[in-house]
């Protein structure tokens, strides 16, 4: 009896001690570790540690990863829902109509109504379809397009995984989505779906090249493939107010422009939305999909758009860095979110502004314009990196040469690009 009491009290003491030391650890975490990290900055990590802190070491790692996954799914799932609403609202405003405004206040419940509608629709599979692939295609597409989020630094301390070759990982995960598009087109057993899938693949492969080439200068100048180090390399301010973001250099600006155009095409957004042009192709490779599978394809499109925008923010716009020194009190993830939303707004604006490209114009733009420009941009970046110690008037010369190297090819190749196109001859009209 006595032994039992002793054992019980000992274990109680031990657990009490463990609890106390846990509280002490928590209190330590509350104290600012580095002066630059405000309380708000560390809030997400502290919240996570408060949840998983009591777990033993291997489980803690597992729980931390799980929480990161759940957080990404929740945040970007909600962002997807409200991005569709924002897109419809903004498109409506641009086209001088109100957009969805009947469900909830200002149409705020519209995404959920859409979700319920998609879930309750009949799921139609064509009689001769390849059933397994028909089911696997949307699932694989969503899963693969979510993989990219794993390496984007969302904040100073919010990196899901730190990889040495993070940028390569991101684009490897992105390249795998092409397979899902092929599966969707082929499994439908519909020759028009298959043709549309082939066109989509041609587009994806064509634009993969400028996308990959446009970030190589960043890797060259930062000297690393790790996203956290690329963001860190863009920290600091010149003369106290001009941030060292890569977009503010000649080669960085050209790279950012090429990256964004290629990202538009990679995520099948207008004006490059030929693969699923609803009004022309009856949604291309998605013709035979209905209900929730169809919604999954759009979910993957929006996830891909968010991931590519996040990568653009990381590579060119300084990631989570604040634009001005005195604005650093705002937590880093808020800056990341602001930049991400600005880019997404740009995507929507472009969709409302530009007409769709023709297939031949689309491939010509990739192969005859973007790829050579990206290659020349590589040379510009090499020049920039070789002349990093030029000072005084030489600094002006450096900017001038780099600017000519960026603008000159753009003008010359732009002329040859539009040589046979404008003014258009309407032969059959």
């Amino acid at each position, binding site marked *: 009896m006595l032994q039992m009491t002793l054992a019980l009290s000992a274990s109680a003491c031990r657990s009490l001690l463990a609890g106390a030391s846990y509280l002490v650890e928590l209190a330590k975490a509350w104290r600012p570790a580095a002066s630059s990290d405000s309380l708000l900055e560390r809030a997400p990590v502290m919240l996570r540690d408060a949840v998983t802190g009591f777990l033993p070491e291997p489980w803690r790692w597992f729980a931390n990863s799980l929480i990161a996954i759940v957080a990404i799914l929740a945040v970007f799932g909600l962002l997807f829902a409200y991005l569709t609403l924002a897109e419809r609202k903004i498109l409506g405003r641009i086209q001088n109509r109100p957009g969805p405004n009947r469900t909830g206040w200002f149409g705020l419940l519209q995404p959920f109504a859409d979700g319920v509608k998609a879930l309750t629709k009949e799921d139609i599979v064509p009689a001769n379809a390849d059933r397994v692939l028909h089911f696997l295609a949307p699932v694989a597409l969503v899963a693969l397009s979510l993989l990219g989020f794993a390496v984007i630094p969302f904040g100073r301390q919010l990196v899901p995984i730190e990889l*040495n070759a993070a940028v*390569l990982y991101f684009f490897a995960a992105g*390249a795998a989505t092409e397979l899902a598009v092929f599966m969707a087109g082929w499994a439908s057993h519909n020759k028009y779906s298959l043709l549309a899938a082939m066109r989509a693949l041609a587009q994806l492969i064509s634009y993969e090249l400028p996308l990959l080439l446009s970030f190589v200068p960043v890797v060259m100048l930062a000297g690393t493939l790790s996203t956290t180090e690329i963001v860190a390399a863009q920290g600091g301010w010149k003369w106290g107010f001009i941030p060292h973001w890569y977009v503010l250099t000649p080669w960085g600006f050209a790279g950012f422009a090429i990256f964004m155009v290629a990202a538009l095409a990679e995520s099948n957004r207008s004006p490059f939305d030929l693969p699923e042009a609803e009004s022309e192709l009856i949604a291309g490779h998605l013709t035979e999909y209905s209900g929730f599978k169809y919604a999954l394809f759009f979910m993957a499109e929006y996830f891909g758009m968010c991931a590519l925008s996040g990568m653009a923010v990381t590579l060119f716009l300084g990631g989570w860095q604040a634009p001005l020194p005195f604005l650093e009190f705002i937590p880093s993830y808020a800056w990341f979110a602001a930049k991400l939303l600005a880019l997404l707004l740009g995507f929507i604006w472009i969709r409302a502004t530009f007409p769709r490209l023709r297939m031949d114009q689309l491939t010509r733009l990739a192969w005859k314009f973007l790829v050579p420009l990206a290659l020349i941009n590589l040379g510009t970046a090499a020049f920039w990196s070789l002349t990093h110690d030029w000072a005084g008037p030489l600094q002006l010369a450096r900017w001038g040469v780099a600017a000519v190297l960026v603008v000159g090819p753009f003008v010359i190749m732009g002329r040859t690009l539009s040589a046979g196109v404008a003014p258009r001859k309407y032969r059959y009209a």
Partner: protein
Amino acid sequence: MIFVLTIIAFLTLATAAVALALRNLIHSALLLTVSWSGIAAFYLWAGAEFVAFAQILIYVGAISMVVLFAVLLTRRSRDDFAIAPESVGRAVSALIAGGAVLGVLFGAVVSTRLPDPPTSAPVVTVRRLGLQLMSPHAAALLVVGALLTVALLGAVVLAATARRDATEDAG
């Protein structure tokens, strides 16, 4: 550690074997991408991060696409994917030859005493890899670049058709 390796090996071997035995070429190509991803998983397991992502990017992203395009371009009708079963004699002789090679290789591997593995895994950062590629292996890198260019040009020349008439959209 060994457990993970076993799972990866099983997945890779099973998908590869099934892919090469299937009669539907599209299914074969798609299953092989799973097998190639399994090999990338093995590289990750061994700590060669860069090679793993390069494997995914090139095999799953590029080569599988080329294979699928080739499959689609070399058939006459929609139902031409299912290829006729191979002759039994050919299959049996292939199995015997492959089995013999497998036996020899397994015997050789099992009977060899290999040096003890180092206690710590070698760490190879992308930076060191890049420096190695650019200074001691720069010539090889250039040769590979030339090889890829020549190969792609050759592939285009082989696969391109002569245009029948110059007025493409006269009708």
